[in-house]
């Protein structure tokens, strides 16, 4: 059971950062995953008073504050219009509305969890992580880093020309996914992102140019891309599915998502 000795609602990012340098302290996001741990936390650092709950749209980007809830992502009209509703599709089956009202994008991205729907969909867009000390890092690169003591301030998504579709396989609605998949065409370049393998999401480029550079695709091409892309990463086994099963599911999800993203 999670134990916390002190609670501090940080008055500034500087205070939060200083507190977070101590290994026994922890930043709390929605606290759903953290609560399932048996950690002994000295000080829980709450960022909810720092104005990090926002989605700001400019002509060429969206900036999403770390404390923005998954429900806000799900219901944000402009973000979903830009992402062909892939952002909504990625979060809509995460437990329930009550859960998504408090789970945060910052918590999901910082955690780089092996089951994350959120990491998967944002990696398929031109996304960046704004860190308090570490500057701005591409999300695809940040996903590979080990956890450190910096603070995720916001996620930035550049509004490059995008076609995208998100699909996941679950045993039951609201359960953890067996596999997550986003396929996108970003500025004419196709890619697939596979998560919940059950390892954290990986980015797979269409290096063979199987889907071409056009926005529309044929079913035959998507099948080839699915077969190619599913072989570009590794899979693991857990109680939800074996590695072999995941690989087979991957080929199908990639094909379907590519077909959906590439429809007229």
């Amino acid at each position, binding site marked *: 059971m999670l134990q916390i000795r002190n609670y501090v609602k940080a008055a500034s990012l500087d205070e939060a950062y200083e507190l977070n340098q101590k290994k026994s302290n922890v930043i709390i996001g929605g606290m759903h995953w953290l609560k399932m741990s048996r950690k002994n936390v000295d000080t829980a650092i709450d960022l909810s008073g720092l104005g990090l709950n926002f989605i700001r749209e400019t002509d060429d980007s969206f900036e999403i504050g770390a404390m923005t809830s998954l429900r806000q992502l799900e219901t944000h009209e402009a973000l979903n219009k830009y992402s062909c509703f892939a952002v909504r599709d990625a979060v809509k089956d995460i437990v329930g509305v*009550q859960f998504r009202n408090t789970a945060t994008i910052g918590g999901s991205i910082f955690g780089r969890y092996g089951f994350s729907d959120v990491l998967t969909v944002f990696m398929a867009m031109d996304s960046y992580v704004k860190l308090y000390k570490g500057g701005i890092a591409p999300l695809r690169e940040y996903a590979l880093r080990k956890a450190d003591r910096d603070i995720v301030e916001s996620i930035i998504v550049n509004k490059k020309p995008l076609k995208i579709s998100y699909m996941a396989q679950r045993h039951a609605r609201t359960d953890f996914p067996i596999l997550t998949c986003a396929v996108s065409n970003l500025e004419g370049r196709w890619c697939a992102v596979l998560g919940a393998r059950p390892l954290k999401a990986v980015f797979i480029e269409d290096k063979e140019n199987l889907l071409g550079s056009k926005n529309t695709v044929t079913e035959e091409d998507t099948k080839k891309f699915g077969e190619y892309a599913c072989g570009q990463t590794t899979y693991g086994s857990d109680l939800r599915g074996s590695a072999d099963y995941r690989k087979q599911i991957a080929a199908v999800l990639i094909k379907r998502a590519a077909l959906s993203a590439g429809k007229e």
Partner: protein
Amino acid sequence: MKLNFLLNRKNVSAEIEADSLLIDVLRNLGCYSVKRGCESSNCGLCTVFLNDMPVLSCSVLAARAEGQRVTTLEGLQGEAEDFGAFIADQGAEQCGFCNPGFMMNAIAMFRENPDPSDEEILSYLSGNLCRCSGYEGQLRGIRAYLDFKKSQKEGV
């Protein structure tokens, strides 16, 4: 540490620990409608409103409620009675343990989307688990309640 917040429109205070959960504070203050089911953020039994937004009180640090507005089913008796009768009419529940969390989230849905489709209802309430009577009766009850509200509005 001392916690001050608005509970069902009344100012209350409670002595809490840094890791006290909102569910425990609310039950200690007499709100027994708030139930502990799974304690893993999955079942929806502990649903309360935090500033009118449904949240899982088993996963919210009580300290985060400082100065905020918390509503439990005890504070929504009017709305709950109205709607609860339609659920009972359908025999939609057996043990009733999931009922308070279900009622809270259904009320949140009615406020957010007064005219939901069946798919929207199932989607909004997917985080409220019922282990004995299933969801068909709940859906029928919600539909009957919404139809009644609609007919009232249209003066039929």
